[in-house]
């Protein structure tokens, strides 16, 4: 245990800042985002459309369209390698092989003029020294693994349904056994029944292959099902991050609170949904202080004046809110007042309650 604590984390994103330039306006899509991910772990990035979630994962793979997008600052360390300083050539060796991505819309993620087999084969042949025949066998295996009969190798994407296409995309992403999988709302475009199948399959494959996953979603149900930890993203910032169970039970940030209130509860405790009032801020013109302040029921002058830092409310649970932090936990955070927290260090601390929660949730899942 002690050794793993000191080890460099599997993936560490620090101070990532990404901006888009469009018609003279600078759109601040991602602002100083930091988080870590350990091997085999799944983190969920949750937030509204346009919050910058996709930009964060695309930066990791360095496939943002440049121009207009530009990674302004930050580091992304993956297995001890700093990705942002790699040459394009070195980066290409990582894309698709070490890190791969599942896109949001399976209907458009596959090239319509190539057969699905060819498209999976391409990923394999790029990174693995294999004869055509070996690769073909492997592709057939991959297809079977995601539940598509190998005979459909030579069919074109338009001959597949949406759910089947997403399976193809998943097979493609997993073909080289990546250590890290970036899943951008992999089930949003699918029917509910198909969603469950795809999620179930992803869970199974994750366990089998030991892949770490960054899962983008705005569906808290999916978070509950597949994630270990959650990071709530708002206006290009992480506003709250922590263990899934902990966050579900003790969400601190008013935005997280709002997110949870804006989904109908199955237990039927609430008679009315409480939608979050207002709209997300214009990313070209962000508020000076807390970016959620304009919509926040608790906001005061202090919130509007200066940016709020991400602080550790409880071990492993970070929140970017002055009000809630003061109200919920009386512990003073002096000494860390003026700078953000070295998350990596903080996270590697022995985590009493948080690990319990994980254990509990895992146990609960197994019982189910």
């Amino acid at each position: 245990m002690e050794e793993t604590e000191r080890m460099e984390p599997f993936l560490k994103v620090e101070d990532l800042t990404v901006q888009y330039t469009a018609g003279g306006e600078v759109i601040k899509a991602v602002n100083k985002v930091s988080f870590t991910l350990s091997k085999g772990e799944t983190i969920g990035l949750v937030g509204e459309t346009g919050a910058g979630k996709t930009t964060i994962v695309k930066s990791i793979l360095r496939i943002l369209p440049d121009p207009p997008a530009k990674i302004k600052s930050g580091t992304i360390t993956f297995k001890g390698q700093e990705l942002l300083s790699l040459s394009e050539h070195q980066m290409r060796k990582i894309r698709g092989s070490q890190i791969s991505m599942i896109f949001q819309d399976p209907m458009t993620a596959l090239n319509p003029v190539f057969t699905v087999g060819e498209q999976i084969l391409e990923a394999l042949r790029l990174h693995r020294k294999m004869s055509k025949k070996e690769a073909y066998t492997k592709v057939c295996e991959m297809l079977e693994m995601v539940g598509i009969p190998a005979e459909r190798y030579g069919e074109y994407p338009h001959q597949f349904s949406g759910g089947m296409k997403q399976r193809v995309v998943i097979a493609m992403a997993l073909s080289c056994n990546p250590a890290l999988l970036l899943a951008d709302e992999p089930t949003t475009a699918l029917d509910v029944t198909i969603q469950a199948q795809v999620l179930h399959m992803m869970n199974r494959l994750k366990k089998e292959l030991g892949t770490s996953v960054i899962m983008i979603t705005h569906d808290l149900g999916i978070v509950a099902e597949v994630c270990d930890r959650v990071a709530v993203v708002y206006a290009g910032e992480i506003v709250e991050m922590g263990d899934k169970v902990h966050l579900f039970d003790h969400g601190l940030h008013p935005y997280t609170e709002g997110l949870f209130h804006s989904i109908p509860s199955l237990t039927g405790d609430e008679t009315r949904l409480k939608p979050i009032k207002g709209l997300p801020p214009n990313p070209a013109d962000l508020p000076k202080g807390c970016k959620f302040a304009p919509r926040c029921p608790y906001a005061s002058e202090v919130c509007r004046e200066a940016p709020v830092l991400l602080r550790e409310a409880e071990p492993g649970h970070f929140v970017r809110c002055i009000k809630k932090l003061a109200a919920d936990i009386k512990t003073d955070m002096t000494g860390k007042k003026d700078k953000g927290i070295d998350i990596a260090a903080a996270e590697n601390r022995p985590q009493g309650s948080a690990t319990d929660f994980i254990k509990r949730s895992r146990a609960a899942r197994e019982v189910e």
Partner: protein
Amino acid sequence: MIRYILKRLFTMIFVLLGVTLLIFTIMWYCPGDPARSLLSDDATEEQIEELREEMGLNEPFFVQFFDYVVKAVVHHDLGESYQTKIDVSTEIIQRFPNTVKVATLAVFIAALFGIPLGVIAAVNQSTWKDNTAMAVSLVGVSMPGFWFGLMLSLLFALKLRWLPASGFAGPKYLILPCVAIGIGGVGMISRQMRSSMLEVIRQDYVVTARAKGQVEWKVIYVHAFRNSLIPVITQIGSMFGHQLGGAMVAETVFSIPGLGTYMVNAIKARDYPAVRGSVLYVALVFALVMLAVDLLYAFIDPRIKAQYSNKKKRGGKKIG
């Protein structure tokens, strides 16, 4: 697929009938009397009338029309030129290859330069490369082809004496006319290619290819290129067709004995059978080219292929 082709050929018959009717109507209202212009000025009214009767010009419109269609379909006979007394179809078949040569080479030049220019512009959107490529293509689309031809022959034929200014006696004679016509095509194709490519490189599957770790030139030339080709091929096809009909201007400039010069002379001489025959012939070839283009789609895009054969499947199901 075959069913689709047959269906297209079937509709083509009606379109060509329509074209015949249209051109027949246009020529019907053409001022002047071909009989009169064929005879010398001192011919008597009786002589003219006699000739009109003989040429069938006194028959009512629809009688003439049906007569023409029946002859064309049954005997492949497009009539006899008033001027030369030579069979129109014979003359067209003699001259048409020249026009096709010029049009093919011009379109080839246009595609050869236009496609890469468009791709480069799209891939380097809003950079100096894009701007330069688009400036070139803007000059291309704005250039009056026949004037450019004149300028080329002024420079390369009359001043530098590198190339012949007119005539049609070998490959050398093809260069200037084809470049003159081709430049407009370079402009049109590169613009189309650019906008189509810009559309495609924003697609998710292009990002997918990049996310796989594919090298950039393969992302563009393997994944994006084939998808962006369809509108460009349509344009190349229709450009070829229009070139067959528009060749007359370039042919006039360079005195090429093609279908264009034939038709221009025929029009000036009120030689109706020659005009009708030329138009009909070009329309037929044009229609066939566009059919070929549509079939080419099927080889590029499996979705279109599926569409073509779907109809067949559905038909089959009904029977079964």
